[in-house]
């Protein structure tokens, strides 16, 4: 994922309060983005977005304990058997 696309230059003027933000491969994003310089923008997106959907083939611990949902759902997929995945 190209995290630079989240930089303030690109997202600074975007209003996320009516947005549904979908994050695919949530485990990877959660692990990698925390050390990047675009964290302030990502934090804003997670805080302001109307809904955040975090997807991952595996059940991974969400960060809901740090970003408690207030009127928003943080949804994630349950574990799917990776070998049974067919083309979507």
């Amino acid at each position: 994922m190209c995290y630079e696309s989240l930089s303030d230059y690109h997202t600074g003027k975007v209003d996320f309060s009516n947005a549904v933000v979908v994050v695919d491969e949530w485990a990877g994003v959660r692990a990698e983005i925390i050390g990047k310089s675009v964290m302030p923008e990502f934090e804003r997106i997670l805080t302001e977005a109307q809904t955040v959907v975090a997807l991952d083939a595996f059940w991974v611990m969400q960060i809901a304990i740090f970003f408690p949902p207030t009127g928003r759902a943080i949804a994630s997929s349950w574990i799917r058997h990776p070998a049974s995945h067919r083309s979507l």
Partner: protein
Amino acid sequence: MKWIETRTKAGDISFDHSGVALTIFDSWFPVSKPDDRYIVVTDNRVAAKSVYEWAIRVIGLKESEVILVCSETPEQNRLFMPDPDGCIGEGVRLVILTPTAQSGLDIQIPFTAGLGLFCGVVPGTQALQLIGRARQCGEWFVSAPRRAIDEGEGAFDEVKLQRCLSRLPEALQEVGAAIGKKSDGWAFWQREIGKIWQQFNSEAIHWLLKKYYASVETVELMARRQDFKRQVSKVKTREAEQVLSGNGEHGASLREDEKLPYYDSEVWDYKLAEETEKYPKVYAALIDAYESGDEATREDAIITTKTFLNKRQMDSLKNYIQAEEPNEDDDQALQERQAGYTNYSSSHFKKLQYQELYRSLGLVSLAKLKRGGKLNLDPNENAFNENTPRIQKLWQSFQKNSRLRNLFPIVETIQDFFKVVKSAMSYLGFQKQGGTVRVKVDQPAPNGTDRNGQQRFSNTAPKYFVGWFIRAESGTKFFCENFEMIIKAVRDR
């Protein structure tokens, strides 16, 4: 699903699986039928290229019969990613994937067998994602060797997590970073959990495989270590040559325009520009030597480039120089970065943590080992664990230093402290050597049985110690032999 184990010459389980790919290839290709197809997935780009070279050079596959997908093949990737089945088609007998092939990639075409080579770069779940690229694969072999585990891994549970989280604001305030960000706790949790994932990567992959695949049996293979290491060396030599032959100006303009390489050749232009930005004088001299020097000079330039391309080695050397030779400009720059955006996982926060620990406690004095001759770990001189007086003194100094205590909310016991000391030494590139030494103990320790079957006791017991080589002797052979030249080049880069 077959879980690979290898053995050392002495017959113990080995942590080194280099060369299992070659052994597997020996069992696959000689007896393969024309329409047999194989897949290799790995988290290691150099391993992918080594396997590719071996398939062409030794197994005798044609270039058209092998597909390699990595960060250095953008032209191939543009064709392959949208339509992998089309690309693989009839003639391809071997597909090699790296994490460049992301989890959306869907390869329906069936494979006879597959091999996964995981050296701990990606977390276990991502390893399974890589295996899952091939939707239909007959038999999988997985190599994910374990890492040696130091004794005394402390527990990291919810209680400890809460305690550390409550001390986190002090840690961030020490460096002048903003506190109270929602992501602060997340960053702490992620960094600490990340260490555990890395340490137990192999066990995690094994567990995940057993959870999601019908059967996982262990197979023991011979590892063709020397052959593979020679192949890896050839790949790295060629990489060095490709970097030195790149077009630095073009690479610099790509970087300036924030463009990624579009053509395969641009990969090397880009890498050269990246390297030149880090070490301008060094690369100017290397390119000069490569282009206009004689055979011997060119060889030297290539070997030196290989060393500078070893990111881990060079980064840790830079960290060492900055810690060991305090420089006002560097220190101020580091301090300013903290005020920008900092959390517990930020690279600049980590750098400041380890620098402070190293300088305040004089950790350089722990590095006493030298090469040449028999290595003697002596707990009174050059080898340490939590019970060594030297470490206990350092622990007391740490506890008296409020800034250090604040910088390291994870440290609560001497075991935590010693772990952090080991991490700091590793961060700064000191090479560690562990070993068991018999030492006097207070309580008589069991020591086998005598000939009548009675339990025997002795005044000594084997204990595990670690020591560190001095900085100038921590690294590859070339690095150690040319340490003065390399460190000088980095100092005035």
